[in-house]
């Protein structure tokens, strides 16, 4: 149920099983409504692999990341990281293991402590876990700065003296401090300039190769995901609609949402030949479905079946999973 290559021998580094997260929202006077933010997400990530996740703002991506990291423990479901079920181990052990899973955030402007120098910021992981002698720590900090391409002069400066791209590099440096195995990246390049985006993506690619890192890369930008991901998952309304290997998502998208996303991307080549978008955009929040497919209000091809039950992930092709009633019914849909 994960779409990874079947010949992978190693155990997955991250296994998320039917993750659900809901929040209580004040409803009428004494009752509280439960709003499902994440409604049953499952996937695995193998060592050294990048799983890209397309998620628009408001789809619950930040909640998903925080739930995987067990910051806000999920309402139900399991997260198994490096073989350990994060819900079953003690808090102390969880803290230890969690250091092998780091988050890189979207907003580079708030990720480093604003009143501490870069050096102090980067020393934090070592101080907290009491690792290494002071000399070793300083050596490691210097090493980290080099790895992310920052000069050693950066040490004594404060975060606000750096540009967005540089701060993002420092964030990555801090995330690497404890030698993580998995990085959860929450739109790390969306706030950056076009020319800097590529630099940071290159840095991430390079780091992955050097340290055999696994990435869970959430982004809005399908083109960036194309470059980094081995597999791509399409998220909508707190569920995955489609998971497939990189090439297949672009060559043969099956889910109507994936199709409309790909259609809506403004590309230079498209601009030249004129364009004709059949864009379908989620309008407002009150149309969330309780039963049936989450995409129903926006789908142009929906029929009665879609309203009655939530479609399950079915394997359409080797490694290609889609959650859509229409796809299950007709095994071979030609792309339009």
């Amino acid at each position, binding site marked *: 149920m994960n779409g990874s290559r079947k010949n992978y021998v190693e155990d997955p580094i991250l296994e998320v099983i039917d993750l659900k997260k809901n929040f209580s929202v004040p409803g009428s006077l004494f009752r509280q409504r439960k709003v499902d933010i994440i409604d049953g997400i499952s996937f695995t990530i193998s060592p050294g692999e990048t799983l890209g996740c397309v998620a628009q703002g408001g789809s619950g991506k930040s909640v998903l990341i925080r739930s995987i990291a067990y910051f806000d423990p999920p309402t139900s479901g399991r997260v198994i990281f490096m073989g350990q079920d994060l819900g079953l181990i003690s808090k102390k052990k969880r803290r230890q293991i969690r250091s092998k899973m780091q988050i890189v955030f979207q907003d580079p402007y708030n990720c480093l402590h604003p009143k501490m120098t870069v050096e102090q910021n980067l020393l934090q992981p070592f101080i907290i876990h009491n690792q290494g002698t002071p000399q070793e720590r300083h050596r490691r900090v210097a090493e980290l700065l080099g790895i992310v391409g920052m000069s050693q002069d950066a040490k004594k400066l404060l975060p606000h003296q750096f540009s967005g791209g540089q701060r993002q590099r420092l964030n990555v440096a801090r995330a690497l401090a404890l030698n993580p195995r998995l990085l959860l990246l929450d739109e790390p390049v969306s706030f950056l300039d076009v020319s800097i985006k590529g630099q940071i993506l290159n840095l991430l690619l390079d780091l992955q190769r050097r340290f055999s890192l696994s990435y869970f890369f959430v982004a809005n930008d399908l*083109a960036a995901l194309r470059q980094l991901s081995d597999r791509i998952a399409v998220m909508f309304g707190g569920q995955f609609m489609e998971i497939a290997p990189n090439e297949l998502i672009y060559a043969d998208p099956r889910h109507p949402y994936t199709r409309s996303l790909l259609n809506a991307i403004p*590309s*230079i080549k498209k601009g030249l030949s004129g364009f004709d978008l059949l864009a379908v*955009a989620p309008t407002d929040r009150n149309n969330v479905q309780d039963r049936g497919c989450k995409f129903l209000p926006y789908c142009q091809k929906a029929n009665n079946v879609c309203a009655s039950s939530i479609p399950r992930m079915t394997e359409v092709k080797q490694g290609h999973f889609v959650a859509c009633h229409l796809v299950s019914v007709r095994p071979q849909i030609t792309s339009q």
Partner: protein
Amino acid sequence: MSDNNSMLLEVRDLKTYFFLKKTLKAVDGVSFTLAKGRTMALVGESGAGKSVTCQSILRSVYPPGAIVGGNILWKGRDLVKLSAREMRNIRGDQIAMVFQNPLTSLNPLFTMGAQLSDAILAHRRVSKGKAKEIVLDALEKTGINEPEIMYNRYPCELNAGTIQQAMFGAAMLCEPELILADEVTSNLDILSQAKILITMKDIQKKWGLAFIMVTHDLGVATQIADDILVMYGGRCVEHTSMRELITHPLHPYTQALIGSVLEIEAPRMDVIKTIPGNPPDMYNPPNGCCFCLRCPQAGEVCSKRNPGLVVVSENHQCACFGVHKA
């Protein structure tokens, strides 16, 4: 570009500086013309001066910033020389602006419809009912489904894309002839972005509006722009029609920018093409051409003098020592 009759806006050598501890030359000599019903895209990275150019056109640059030179001819009148009162008549009425962040454009405590009605009531003497009618009409014009329901919604209940559409509606309330769209799609997801682009094209077709679209995304620019002006470090580095820019980019920055845009159809690369270095620090701009530190084709003269805008061919201008008149 076209004859003078349909020339809506003509900007000549606009200079807007900010006087802080050091003088920050946010816009340093930008010129372009815009005809009726055409769309021009201002493309560049952050700090290039695109937003400040728009604010200068609307004369909303306040101390410590000021327009220090140049002319902005709107239908023949120089906006730089107008009084505050005369400018107020033009702002919102003939030239409108839509901003980047839809979530901060509206007051979260009032319904969207009420705020738009307030905007009308502030400028025109109409009844509340008539104001509501105008608002509903404008919402429909911009392609919002079920405007009646949207009217009574609060901003927190609305999708960012819908709010942005409503802001376009708000901009259209007084039937302007030019709308300045400042990074209107940057905070939106892909589908909402596409919707806004369709909306803009639609408005333009039906009502003949002109647009100046500020964006850092070349892909977005190519969707709707007729002409593109590339800015870097407060100056114009290349200015031509959209097709010409994409097929025959002359300036090294434009070439690098096009090269670094990630396309869906492109195969996976080991190393993504990118522009080395950082955008210029506008407090300490480099001597000579502002792009010279990152330019793969930089020569000796580039770090000494600033290249002026050269007319390479009819309709195509470029500011680079390496590019000569055809």
